[in-house]
């Protein structure tokens, strides 16, 4: 097997699950661990972790909301890892942005390290990765593992937090293609659609559901008009907002026709012939 540059000579990587991977998105975690095992990469869950502190706080002085992410990075470092992978787009974004702050903002890190006097100081030395960045370098290996090639047209839906802000983008932020290449590698056809990087409404689902219903209608209808038979995503909240509320979308928009929504690891498991 070709060495994967992003992982260096290691085929094991620290894995940070996040709360939702243990609840709503269990199938995401299960399939991810299995398909990466097939590819020879072990996702090793770190022994201790906390909610990532999502979503990343933006105020210059809001360091309190970044403690959780720093603590998780310290746990990974303590266990001897210099790279940490996480499946959930929102956890990825929060951990990644916090780690950039840790590397760049000495003043903020002085305050955070002094506040967390029970923890060792953190210096930003754990690199945060998303599994799609690893897969991006392993497309040949992915192809080689396909047993039942996918036979549908899939629209890759990236949402916002894998791509923005620019500093944390896993791919070209206005026109990403890694998931499309993955879909093609798995034998499916990838459907390009303009709304693939438009936000699903995110946490508006908690108190302003209409906004999410409208976004769902726009995104799924747009994917369907471009020929998609299913949607593929990497975010448990996009997954919830696109999949779980389709009934309510139908109520608001009688012309709405839904689409199945999968995590990218679920279609990998299907193509690899891995049992759930």
């Amino acid at each position, binding site marked *: 097997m070709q060495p994967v540059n992003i992982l260096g000579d290691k085929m094991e990587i620290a894995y940070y699950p996040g709360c939702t991977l*243990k609840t709503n998105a269990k199938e995401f975690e299960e399939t991810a661990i299995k398909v990466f095992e097939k590819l020879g990469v072990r996702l090793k869950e770190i022994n201790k972790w906390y*909610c990532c502190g999502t979503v990343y706080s933006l105020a210059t002085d809001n360091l309190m909301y970044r403690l959780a992410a720093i603590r998780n990075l310290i746990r990974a470092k303590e266990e001897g890892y210099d790279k940490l992978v996480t499946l959930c787009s929102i956890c990825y974004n929060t951990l990644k942005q916090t780690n950039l702050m840790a590397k760049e903002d000495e003043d903020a890190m002085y305050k955070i390290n002094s506040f967390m006097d029970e923890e060792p100081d953190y210096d930003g030395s754990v690199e945060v990765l998303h599994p799609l960045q690893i897969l991006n370098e392993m497309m040949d290996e992915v192809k080689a593992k396909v047993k039942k090639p996918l036979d549908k047209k899939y629209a890759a839906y990236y949402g916002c937090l894998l791509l923005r802000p620019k500093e944390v983008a896993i791919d070209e932020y206005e026109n990403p293609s890694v998931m499309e290449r993955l879909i093609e590698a798995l034998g499916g056809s990838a459907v390009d659609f303009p709304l693939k990087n438009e936000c699903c409404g995110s946490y508006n689902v908690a108190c302003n559901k209409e906004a999410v219903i409208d976004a769902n209608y726009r995104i799924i209808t747009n994917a369907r008009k471009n020929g998609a038979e299913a949607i593929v995503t990497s975010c448990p909240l996009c997954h919830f907002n696109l999949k779980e509320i389709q009934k309510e979308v139908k109520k608001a928009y009688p012309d709405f026709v839904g689409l199945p929504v999968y995590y990218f690891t679920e279609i990998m498991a299907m193509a690899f012939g891995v049992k759930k």
Partner: protein
Amino acid sequence: MKMVRIYIMGKEYRVPEGLTIMKAMEYAGYRYIRGSGCRAGFCGACATVYRKEGEYKLHADLACQTTVEDGMYLVQLPFTPANKAIYDLEKIRVDDKTLVNFYPEIARCVSCNTCTKACPQELDVMDYIQASLRGDVAKAAELSFDCIQCGLCAMRCPAEIAHYHVAQLARRLYGKYIAPRAKHLEKRVKEIEEGKFDKDMKKMMKMSIEELRKLYNARDIEPEEEV
């Protein structure tokens, strides 16, 4: 007798060295009406916070378990206002949302760890709140097992969580729905109900104290099982 200076609600007192905070306050003339219970570190009634001279740290402890030190600034927290969710344990189900549905404020936890630092029982309070958030009821129950509900965590929490109520629900759910049933206990209860021990009981009722004592000392003791 060596005396130390302590400050109770800002007023200086001299009290004998070696007293607990609770006894020192009584020595100084305060009388506990609330905020005192077992005086043995189990009931959680005598939560107290203090600072020491020349230190920025705010300490939290039980007044009955902590010895006074020279230059302590003290106040008692006899009660913590905290809402307790109302539920019928027979009717609620346990899943990965139960705790967060009853106590949605646990989603506000920022992992500052202040609760853990405040806990006089030295529990990993933040860890059990985090376990509760991700629906791991068993872990939350296990980590909070020694909680005495003094309320110090809740008073220090910037996210305004009432940790100890969350933990109590976790332990109740664990006991009712998750912990394995004690099969041997069920079996024994059934045997008792079926009268298996009636004869022995009747025999023992007629024994003298001496005979009972002898019987007791000669009883079989099951080895303690590792849990």
